[in-house]
Structures are given as C-alpha cells and as structure tokens.
C-alpha cells in the first residue's frame, strides 16, 4: 500500500493496480474499520476498486502522519474481519422492451437473448464501489462471453432501474440519467431512497444476484415499461 496526495486536505491510498476481489477485500476491510471506529478529523472516506480516499481536516492531520497512522491500523486488520457482504437478489425484467441493448448484445456475441440473460443471471456480482451518482453501484465481473464495450455515443436519457453492463462491469441506474452502458433489463427495486437506512440499497462489499422475472411480476412490483 502506498499513497499519493489527492488535495491539500486529502490522500488516496493505493492497494494494487488491477480489479480483483482480493484487493477489494483489503480496501473494504480498512474502509469498514474506519467507518466503525472513526479517526477524529476525517471528513470523507470513499472506497473504490483499488483505492481508499480520505479527506481530512488539515488542522488535525498531515498527509504523512495520517498515512503512517492508517498503515499501522491496516496491519492490525485481518481480512477475515471484513464484514461479509450482504447477499442481495435484485429481481429484473429482461426483455427488449426494457432492455434496449439486449438484442444488440446477443447479436454481437452470436447468442440468443435467453442465453445472454442466463449468463448474466447465473453469476453473483460484488459491489466494488458506489459512485457516479447516489446509489450507483459498480459491480463485477460479468461473464466474458457477454462483456460488451460502452456505446460509442452515450444515450441522453436512460430510464431509472435500468440494468446495464459495460465491459465486465455491471450496474443499475438509480435514477434516469444520461449514460453509455448497455441496457439488458429493468428492475422496480429502488436503488437510492432517502427513506432507507443508509440511503443506498447497495453498499460496497455486497454480493448481488439478478433474478429474471416475468413482465407480470415486474409490473406487480411497480415496474414501468
């Protein structure tokens, strides 16, 4: 682990240089430890795939001393102390009427739509980080057989609840927003809700499965087409 200056009052810790569950475990172990027992003077703690970002009160910390303190803490934390991510199933309707890119993704990989959906729903995905927008969970890794690059031209508006992939990453759009990911389906599950404890339905470290549901089930859950 090493650090770089992110700003006059922030450091970014680097744990590795590839996306892997092992590196993510180390990032999240430290993130959870800092959330559970906050160090005075830390203002923001943001984990990503291989990094942990700490914004601090510069009247309390310096980059160097904070890093030394964090490194000492890091060696105490066993990766076994990582809270096991919650297992969460997200029901979603996979159909070209809501999965705007489903047919194109299938054609690109010479698969049927059913095969794409089967490959997508048979995996369990890890939430690596939340970002881009409130409650937007970056998950991985999608089966290489359906991995699809981002759209050359992003869409101006992607509907709320869209289940999407980009390369081997996947996500659910918490709100309607512009975006360039390939949309496979749609869920009625609210990904971000200010009435929800923790606000974000998913948190870094969670393990997520998608369950294919019928059009009727989707509508019954409040889904819109």
């Amino acid at each position, binding site marked *: 682990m090493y650090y770089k200056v992110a*700003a006059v009052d922030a450091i970014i810790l680097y744990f590795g240089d590839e996306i892997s569950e092992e590196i993510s475990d180390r990032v999240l172990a430290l993130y959870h430890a800092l959330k559970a027992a906050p160090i005075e003077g830390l203002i923001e703690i943001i984990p990503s795939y291989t990094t942990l970002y700490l914004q601090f009160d510069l009247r309390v910390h310096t980059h160097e001393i904070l890093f030394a303190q964090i490194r000492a803490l890091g060696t105490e934390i066993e990766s076994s102390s990582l809270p096991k991510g919650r297992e969460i199933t997200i029901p979603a309707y996979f159909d070209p009427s809501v999965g705007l890119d489903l047919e194109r993704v299938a054609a690109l990989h010479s698969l049927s739509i059913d095969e794409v959906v089967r490959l997508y729903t048979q995996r369990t995905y890890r939430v690596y980080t939340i970002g881009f927008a409130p409650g937007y969970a970056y998950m991985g890794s999608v089966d290489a057989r359906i991995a699809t690059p981002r759209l050359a031209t992003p869409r101006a508006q992607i509907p709320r609840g869209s289940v999407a992939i980009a390369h081997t990453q996947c996500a659910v759009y918490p709100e309607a927003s512009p975006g360039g990911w390939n949309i496979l389906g749609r869920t009625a599950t609210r990904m971000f809700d200010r009435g929800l404890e923790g606000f974000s339905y998913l948190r870094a470290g969670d393990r997520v499965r998608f369950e294919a549901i019928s059009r009727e089930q989707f509508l019954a859950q409040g889904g819109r087409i």
Partner: protein
Amino acid sequence: MSGLRVHQAGLLTQIEDGGRIGYGDIGITQSGAADRYSAAWANRLLLQPVDTPLLEILLGGVSLVSEADTVVALTGAEGAVKINGREVALWRAHPLSKGDRIEIGIAKRGLRLYLAVKSGFACQPELGSCATTLKEGFGRSVEQGDLLLCGTGLSSPVCSTLGHLIPDYPDMITLRVLLGYQAEGFDGEQRARFFSTPYHVTQATDRMGCRLQGAAVTYGGGELISEPIAYGSIQIPADGQPIVLLNERQTIGGYPKIGSVIPMDCYRLAQARPGTRIVFKETGLEEARSVTQELLEFIDAPYGLPSPP
C-alpha cells in the same frame, strides 16, 4: 415566519451552505457554495455561522420584495444592486423593512452573487445539509413567486468588509496546483507545457467543474481504474484539455489527474467567466497547507461584534 418574495428568479438561483459532507461513499457529491469565500463573508457580515443557508445567484437578474423586517448582506460578483431603486454597496449588510425591494442587476464581473439573510433562510436539511444539488434531486432552484422563509423582526449592526479583503475578478487568474494523483504519468515536457502556457475558461463551466482550453497535455501512463476525486482535481481526458472539478463533481472517475487546485483558488475559478485566462502555478505542500489553513481560520473564526479598540 415571514420571508423574501421572489419577483424575478434570475438564471439560476439556489440555496447553498457549506455542503453535504460525509456521504461520498454512497455517491453523493459535496455540493455547497461554489465560492465559499464570498458565501462565508455574506454570513459573517450578519454575525452568524459562515455556513448558514444563503442564496447563490448566477449572474443576477433577481428581484425580491421583503415581507419581513430583517437584514441582508450581499457579496460576490460585481453588479448593480438596488434597494428601493437606490444603488447600494456589495460586501455590506443592509437592513430591510417590510415592503422593501431588492433588485440585483446582471453582474459585470464575476459569476456568482451571495445573498445572506439574518438567521438564515429556513429549510429542511437533507443528509445534514440544505445545499441544492439539482442533478441529485436535493432542493430545487428558486422560482418566481416563491417565499423564501426567514425570521422577521431581526436586526444586526451594519457591517462591511474591509476593501483589501474584497476579491476582484481579473481577466487572468493564477491557480496554484499541488501535484498529486497521476502526476508522475506526465513527463517533464508535458508538465512544462501545462505550467507555462495559458488556458482559458470555456462555456462549459458550472458547479460540477470548469473545462479549460489551451495546449493539450498528454498522459503517458496506462489505463486508470476509476478512483475517488478530490475538490479541485485537474482531470486530463484523452483530448488533453484540463477540467478542474468543483463542488458538484462526480465522486469517482477514471481520467488521469495531474494534481489539484488549492481551495482558495477554486473559489476564484468558480467566479471566472468564459474567456478568463488561466495560468497554473505549481505550489508545494507546505505553502498549500499554510494558505488553506489561513483560509480555514478565517472561515471558522468566532463571529460576533468586533471588540472595541
């Protein structure tokens, strides 16, 4: 509770404060007043905490009628402000009586004005803050007909900011940069170009960030895995044109960053109009820390009547 009635809302007027802090891990941007220095002064002139909710007004064009007896203070961009048709000074507190009309003309220099009211605008904090972030659905922009609630029957001494503490809005500004993040991926030649050639502010400047145009800078490192973004971070996308990320920046991004602009200079950038020339100047950690510390001491200074000499 009474308030200020909005007769003309202007281009974009919204309630801001010190920002929504501590929710970056669920993707929520900090938001808050884009020029925190001017915002802090507006509240300070009313002898109240510097992060009290106030109005951030883009360019002006706002007309308000007071339905309360209160005191307001205006800071930020230079524009003609009138109370009941008479021009009044910015960077100063002004008592208002019921029926008084404030008209804020279009600013001639700078981008954002701040209007604070005694005891602050009443609003329901969400996740600890009244900051408006339109893209996240926190708050909304002020509209014609709104009654911006505030206390009535309040008074406050007429304070004004000392002249040398009032910023100006020159055609060229220097932004002090602390190297960091992927700085090592920019070799000597690229850094020399970045620090020696002027850029200018493009039309693409908003509360999220400020896109600059000038000599393209090339990043020599490999593909980056998306990582958290600090306030003031300077992203260099594939076209080589720097983007300085401000209050409503996305929390995570995958473009390489050469470093970050120190907060005081970010506030000045938030006041820079399209066309403003920008020069980057490298600064060391010690200098950056001392400048920022001084700023925080000002912002967090105890407020209240100055003690008599």
